[in-house]
């Protein structure tokens, strides 16, 4: 027996590990996959940790612009929940039959989980006066950064606010358009733009909070930025997805959203 040909160890190891490789994914519970709008990136991770402690459900978030996430979901991205920065993208998915607010058939509207706040942000060492509506009227304002109004909800709100103030036509040649709200903030933070209309969630992130100051734009100047959530129709984890939405709407989490720059809806 001892003198017989010996199978090389690596082969034995491989044979022993092969079933494990196949079985491992079946043993672990798949995480709840959350497609989240980029403005949630500063605040969602701790909320998802709290959610896991409270329910035992592990959720993983992917942060992108709402438009990119929508295109990905339309093309079969394996998400369970979509937290958009507005209502138009969730509605688009509902109309395409790809998502519902609660379950199949019950697809009236996305659930609004928070409202966004538009602020005017400047660096503290700016040559302009501290942020206020007068800064937008000032001839010294050379470059105003906004997010792309075609698709970024805060960009849309920024243009609406400038139009309500009858400043849009005058400021249009001085606008620099960024891909998203974070990039608009970078334009200002790097001092290449004098000021920017960005989200309060961005203005409250540690770097921007340290570098600059903000002015909350009056809410009657732009239509509300309602952030809507939907459950993706083909999810295999509808109950867990439902729990996450309920958790987001719970008083404790809503209070936390308020601290991070979103307006609670409850």
């Amino acid at each position: 027996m001892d003198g017989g040909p010996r199978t090389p160890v690596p082969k034995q190891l491989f044979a022993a590990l092969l079933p494990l490789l196949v079985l491992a994914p079946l043993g672990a519970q798949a995480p709840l996959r959350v497609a989240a709008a980029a403005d949630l990136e500063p605040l969602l991770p701790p909320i998802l940790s709290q959610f896991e402690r409270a329910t035992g459900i592990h959720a993983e978030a992917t942060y992108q612009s709402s438009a990119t996430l929508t295109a990905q979901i339309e093309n079969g991205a394996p998400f369970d929940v979509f937290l958009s920065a507005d209502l138009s993208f969730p509605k688009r998915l509902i109309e395409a039959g790809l998502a519902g607010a609660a379950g199949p058939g019950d697809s009236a509207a996305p659930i609004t989980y928070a409202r966004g706040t538009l602020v005017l942000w400047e660096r503290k060492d700016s040559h302009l006066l501290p942020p206020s509506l007068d800064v937008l009227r000032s001839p010294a304002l050379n470059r105003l950064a906004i997010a792309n109004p075609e698709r970024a909800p805060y960009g849309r709100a920024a243009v609406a606010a400038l139009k309500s103030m009858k400043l849009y036509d005058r400021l249009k040649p001085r606008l620099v358009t960024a891909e998203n709200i974070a990039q608009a903030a970078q334009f200002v933070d790097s001092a290449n733009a004098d000021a920017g209309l960005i989200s309060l969630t961005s203005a409250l992130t540690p770097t921007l909070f340290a570098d600059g100051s903000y002015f909350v734009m009056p809410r009657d100047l732009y239509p509300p930025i309602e952030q809507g959530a939907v459950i993706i129709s083909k999810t295999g984890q509808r109950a867990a997805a439902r729990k996450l939405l309920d958790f987001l709407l719970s008083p404790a989490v809503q209070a936390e959203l308020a601290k991070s720059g979103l307006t609670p809806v409850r």
Partner: protein
Amino acid sequence: MSAMDWQAFALSLRLAGVTTAILLAIAVPLAALIVLGRGRWLAAVEALSTLPMVLPPTVLGFFLLVLLGPRTAFGRGIAAVLGHPLAFSFDGLVVGSVIYSLPFAVQPLVAGFASVDTALVEAARLLGAGPVRLVSSIFIPVARRSFLAAIVLSFLHTVGEFGVVLMLGGDIPGATRTLSIVLYDQVESFDYAAANRTAAVLLGLSVLALAAIYSTSRKRGSEQRA
């Protein structure tokens, strides 16, 4: 549905043309230096000239935005010379594109110059040719295909440049809104029909340019065989 954005098309061609011209002026002497020179520091020069390929383009764009912005002495100096800040301007995109596309001009030239028969180079040197004469009379004619490749790659890479333009440009029509930005905007706005048209123009341009380069090198190959 939006029509084809010819203003952005013209802007992309202008940006790529200006960038390619500047790149050749930089890359030909640089490649000759790398191939002809002696010394370890040349390895550092070659590495540095390849480095823009490593950084994600939006990150490179962000660094340029900071470097060329009014918060650095360099940025303030340039703004003083030009009379306007570089960010969000066509000139700023040229600076960004030259840095971003540098490896695509230098690499083919280095490869081409290095493949020139050393006997030819030594003979020219013995006959008293200096570096300029070596490049103009030996390197460029003999490594013609690499020279053409450097031009086409720099040009196309600049036309297709996205991340740097996105960060440095600010999407201003006629000044910084290039064709690749328009294409990205169309895709992100779900205007797939317009995106298809824009992409078709970009692809058509690239196929034509590449076919041109490969047909000339093919012609040369068959002449040699004959």
